[in-house]
Protein backbone atom coordinates (compact mmCIF):
# COMPACT_ATOMS: atom_id res chain seq x y z
CA UNK A 1 0.00 0.00 0.00
CA UNK A 2 1.25 3.44 -0.91
CA UNK A 3 2.00 5.54 2.19
CA UNK A 4 0.83 8.72 0.38
CA UNK A 5 -2.80 7.74 0.90
CA UNK A 6 -2.26 7.87 4.69
CA UNK A 7 -0.93 11.44 4.45
CA UNK A 8 -3.79 12.39 2.13
CA UNK A 9 -6.34 11.04 4.61
CA UNK A 10 -4.62 12.93 7.43
CA UNK A 11 -4.66 16.18 5.41
CA UNK A 12 -8.34 15.74 4.53
CA UNK A 13 -9.09 15.07 8.20
CA UNK A 14 -7.35 18.29 9.29
CA UNK A 15 -8.98 20.42 6.58
CA UNK A 16 -12.45 18.98 7.22
CA UNK A 17 -11.98 19.72 10.94
CA UNK A 18 -11.03 23.33 10.10
CA UNK A 19 -14.03 23.67 7.73
CA UNK A 20 -16.26 22.24 10.44
CA UNK A 21 -15.04 24.82 12.97
CA UNK A 22 -15.39 27.72 10.50
CA UNK A 23 -18.95 26.72 9.62
CA UNK A 24 -19.96 26.12 13.23
CA UNK A 25 -18.49 29.50 14.18
CA UNK A 26 -20.76 31.13 11.59
CA UNK A 27 -23.79 29.32 13.02
CA UNK A 28 -24.17 26.96 10.05
CA UNK A 29 -24.28 23.66 11.87
CA UNK A 30 -26.16 21.86 9.07
CA UNK A 31 -23.51 22.66 6.48
CA UNK A 32 -20.79 21.70 8.99
CA UNK A 33 -22.36 18.24 9.38
CA UNK A 34 -22.70 17.88 5.60
CA UNK A 35 -19.02 18.81 5.12
CA UNK A 36 -17.94 16.22 7.67
CA UNK A 37 -20.07 13.60 5.92
CA UNK A 38 -18.62 14.58 2.52
CA UNK A 39 -15.09 14.23 3.91
CA UNK A 40 -15.93 10.82 5.33
CA UNK A 41 -17.37 9.65 1.99
CA UNK A 42 -14.28 10.87 0.07
CA UNK A 43 -11.94 9.04 2.46
CA UNK A 44 -14.09 5.87 2.36
CA UNK A 45 -14.00 6.03 -1.45
CA UNK A 46 -10.18 6.08 -1.29
CA UNK A 47 -9.77 3.21 1.15
CA UNK A 48 -12.56 0.90 0.01
CA UNK A 49 -10.20 -1.06 -2.27
CA UNK A 50 -7.68 -1.37 0.57
CA UNK A 51 -10.40 -2.68 2.92
CA UNK A 52 -11.40 -5.19 0.23
CA UNK A 53 -7.74 -6.29 -0.03
CA UNK A 54 -7.59 -6.63 3.77
CA UNK A 55 -10.66 -8.90 3.83
CA UNK A 56 -9.18 -10.97 0.98
CA UNK A 57 -5.91 -11.36 2.87
CA UNK A 58 -7.71 -12.38 6.07
CA UNK A 59 -9.72 -14.96 4.11
CA UNK A 60 -6.56 -16.39 2.54
CA UNK A 61 -4.66 -16.36 5.84
CA UNK A 62 -7.28 -18.37 7.69
CA UNK A 63 -8.34 -20.31 4.55
CA UNK A 64 -12.01 -19.31 5.00
Amino acid at each position, binding site marked *: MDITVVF*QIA*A*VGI*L*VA*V*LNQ*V*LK*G*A*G*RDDQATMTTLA*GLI*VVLFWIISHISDLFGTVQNLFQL
Partner: protein
Amino acid sequence: MILQIAGGATIVVATSLLGWHFGGLGAKRARDLLEFKKSLIMLKSQIDYTIYTLPQAFLHISERVVPPFDIFYTKISQELEDSRGDISTIWGQAVSRLRFSYLHKNDMDNIALLGTSLGLADVDVQINSIDMVITTIDDTLTKLGVQNAKDAKMYRGLGVVAGLLITIVLL
Protein backbone atom coordinates in the same frame (compact mmCIF):
# COMPACT_ATOMS: atom_id res chain seq x y z
CA MET B 1 5.42 17.50 -10.02
CA ILE B 2 5.87 21.20 -10.87
CA LEU B 3 2.70 21.03 -12.96
CA GLN B 4 0.80 19.53 -10.00
CA ILE B 5 2.03 22.31 -7.67
CA ALA B 6 1.10 24.96 -10.24
CA GLY B 7 -2.37 23.41 -10.68
CA GLY B 8 -2.88 23.18 -6.93
CA ALA B 9 -1.78 26.80 -6.43
CA THR B 10 -4.18 27.91 -9.17
CA ILE B 11 -7.09 26.10 -7.50
CA VAL B 12 -6.26 27.58 -4.08
CA VAL B 13 -5.94 31.10 -5.53
CA ALA B 14 -9.22 30.72 -7.48
CA THR B 15 -11.22 29.46 -4.50
CA SER B 16 -9.67 32.12 -2.23
CA LEU B 17 -10.75 34.82 -4.70
CA LEU B 18 -14.24 33.31 -4.82
CA GLY B 19 -14.30 33.37 -1.02
CA TRP B 20 -13.30 37.06 -1.02
CA HIS B 21 -16.00 37.80 -3.61
CA PHE B 22 -18.78 36.07 -1.67
CA GLY B 23 -17.50 37.54 1.59
CA GLY B 24 -17.91 41.04 0.18
CA LEU B 25 -21.46 40.60 -1.17
CA GLY B 26 -23.11 41.41 2.16
CA ALA B 27 -21.19 44.68 2.47
CA LYS B 28 -22.14 45.62 -1.10
CA ARG B 29 -25.81 44.90 -0.34
CA ALA B 30 -25.59 47.10 2.77
CA ARG B 31 -23.98 49.88 0.69
CA ASP B 32 -26.80 49.67 -1.91
CA LEU B 33 -29.48 49.69 0.80
CA LEU B 34 -27.88 52.74 2.41
CA GLU B 35 -27.73 54.53 -0.94
CA PHE B 36 -31.40 53.78 -1.60
CA LYS B 37 -32.32 54.95 1.88
CA LYS B 38 -30.48 58.22 1.16
CA SER B 39 -32.51 58.64 -2.05
CA LEU B 40 -35.77 57.97 -0.16
CA ILE B 41 -34.91 60.64 2.41
CA MET B 42 -34.35 63.11 -0.46
CA LEU B 43 -37.66 62.04 -2.04
CA LYS B 44 -39.43 62.48 1.29
CA SER B 45 -38.17 66.04 1.72
CA GLN B 46 -39.08 66.92 -1.87
CA ILE B 47 -42.62 65.59 -1.43
CA ASP B 48 -42.89 67.32 1.94
CA TYR B 49 -41.93 70.76 0.64
CA THR B 50 -43.82 70.21 -2.66
CA ILE B 51 -41.28 72.29 -4.59
CA TYR B 52 -41.18 69.95 -7.57
CA THR B 53 -43.61 67.67 -9.36
CA LEU B 54 -42.90 63.97 -8.87
CA PRO B 55 -41.07 63.50 -12.24
CA GLN B 56 -38.91 66.56 -11.47
CA ALA B 57 -38.20 65.28 -7.97
CA PHE B 58 -37.08 61.90 -9.38
CA LEU B 59 -34.81 63.67 -11.87
CA HIS B 60 -33.22 65.77 -9.10
CA ILE B 61 -32.62 62.65 -7.01
CA SER B 62 -31.08 60.82 -9.99
CA GLU B 63 -28.38 63.52 -10.14
CA ARG B 64 -27.44 62.92 -6.50
CA VAL B 65 -27.27 59.13 -6.27
CA VAL B 66 -24.76 56.57 -7.52
CA PRO B 67 -25.42 53.82 -10.12
CA PRO B 68 -27.62 51.83 -10.56
CA PHE B 69 -30.04 54.10 -8.67
CA ASP B 70 -29.37 57.11 -10.90
CA ILE B 71 -30.69 55.15 -13.90
CA PHE B 72 -33.59 53.88 -11.78
CA TYR B 73 -34.80 57.41 -10.98
CA THR B 74 -34.02 58.79 -14.46
CA LYS B 75 -36.11 56.06 -16.10
CA ILE B 76 -39.05 56.65 -13.75
CA SER B 77 -38.86 60.39 -14.37
CA GLN B 78 -38.73 59.96 -18.18
CA GLU B 79 -41.57 57.44 -18.24
CA LEU B 80 -43.75 59.64 -16.01
CA GLU B 81 -43.05 62.67 -18.24
CA ASP B 82 -44.00 60.60 -21.30
CA SER B 83 -47.11 59.34 -19.47
CA ARG B 84 -46.34 55.68 -20.21
CA GLY B 85 -48.70 54.38 -17.55
CA ASP B 86 -49.58 54.94 -13.91
CA ILE B 87 -46.81 55.46 -11.37
CA SER B 88 -47.45 52.11 -9.69
CA THR B 89 -46.67 50.21 -12.92
CA ILE B 90 -43.71 52.42 -13.85
CA TRP B 91 -42.25 52.13 -10.33
CA GLY B 92 -42.72 48.33 -10.36
CA GLN B 93 -40.98 48.00 -13.75
CA ALA B 94 -38.11 50.22 -12.58
CA VAL B 95 -37.70 48.14 -9.40
CA SER B 96 -37.39 44.97 -11.51
CA ARG B 97 -34.41 46.63 -13.26
CA LEU B 98 -32.67 46.85 -9.87
CA ARG B 99 -31.83 43.14 -10.17
CA PHE B 100 -28.42 44.32 -11.43
CA SER B 101 -27.75 45.85 -8.03
CA TYR B 102 -26.72 43.84 -4.95
CA LEU B 103 -30.22 44.08 -3.44
CA HIS B 104 -32.02 40.83 -2.60
CA LYS B 105 -35.52 39.94 -3.77
CA ASN B 106 -37.10 40.82 -0.41
CA ASP B 107 -35.41 44.26 -0.53
CA MET B 108 -36.86 44.84 -4.01
CA ASP B 109 -40.31 43.63 -2.90
CA ASN B 110 -40.17 46.14 -0.04
CA ILE B 111 -39.20 48.95 -2.43
CA ALA B 112 -41.88 47.90 -4.96
CA LEU B 113 -44.58 48.37 -2.29
CA LEU B 114 -43.88 52.10 -2.31
CA GLY B 115 -45.19 52.39 -5.88
CA THR B 116 -48.77 51.79 -4.74
CA SER B 117 -48.90 54.95 -2.63
CA LEU B 118 -46.55 57.37 -4.44
CA GLY B 119 -48.32 60.08 -6.38
CA LEU B 120 -51.77 58.64 -5.69
CA ALA B 121 -52.33 59.28 -2.00
CA ASP B 122 -52.05 62.59 -0.13
CA VAL B 123 -48.70 63.95 1.08
CA ASP B 124 -48.98 62.48 4.61
CA VAL B 125 -49.75 58.98 3.35
CA GLN B 126 -46.88 59.17 0.86
CA ILE B 127 -44.45 60.31 3.57
CA ASN B 128 -45.67 57.59 5.94
CA SER B 129 -45.15 54.97 3.21
CA ILE B 130 -41.60 56.23 2.59
CA ASP B 131 -40.95 56.17 6.36
CA MET B 132 -42.19 52.59 6.50
CA VAL B 133 -39.76 51.52 3.75
CA ILE B 134 -36.92 53.42 5.47
CA THR B 135 -37.69 51.64 8.76
CA THR B 136 -37.61 48.26 7.01
CA ILE B 137 -34.29 49.17 5.35
CA ASP B 138 -32.92 50.23 8.78
CA ASP B 139 -33.98 46.88 10.28
CA THR B 140 -32.31 45.00 7.41
CA LEU B 141 -29.15 47.10 7.82
CA THR B 142 -29.02 46.35 11.56
CA LYS B 143 -29.35 42.61 10.89
CA LEU B 144 -26.78 42.81 8.08
CA GLY B 145 -24.25 44.57 10.31
CA VAL B 146 -24.03 41.55 12.60
CA GLN B 147 -24.36 38.93 9.84
CA ASN B 148 -21.87 40.53 7.41
CA ALA B 149 -18.87 40.33 9.74
CA LYS B 150 -19.61 36.65 10.45
CA ASP B 151 -20.25 35.78 6.78
CA ALA B 152 -17.20 37.63 5.45
CA LYS B 153 -14.92 35.76 7.86
CA MET B 154 -16.61 32.45 7.04
CA TYR B 155 -16.50 32.82 3.23
CA ARG B 156 -12.85 33.92 3.24
CA GLY B 157 -11.87 31.00 5.48
CA LEU B 158 -13.96 28.58 3.42
CA GLY B 159 -12.37 29.77 0.17
CA VAL B 160 -8.83 28.97 1.25
CA VAL B 161 -9.63 25.70 3.04
CA ALA B 162 -11.90 24.44 0.24
CA GLY B 163 -9.10 25.12 -2.28
CA LEU B 164 -6.61 23.13 -0.21
CA LEU B 165 -9.14 20.31 0.19
CA ILE B 166 -9.84 20.10 -3.56
CA THR B 167 -6.09 20.13 -4.28
CA ILE B 168 -5.44 17.26 -1.88
CA VAL B 169 -8.37 15.23 -3.25
CA LEU B 170 -7.13 15.73 -6.83
CA LEU B 171 -3.45 14.92 -6.10
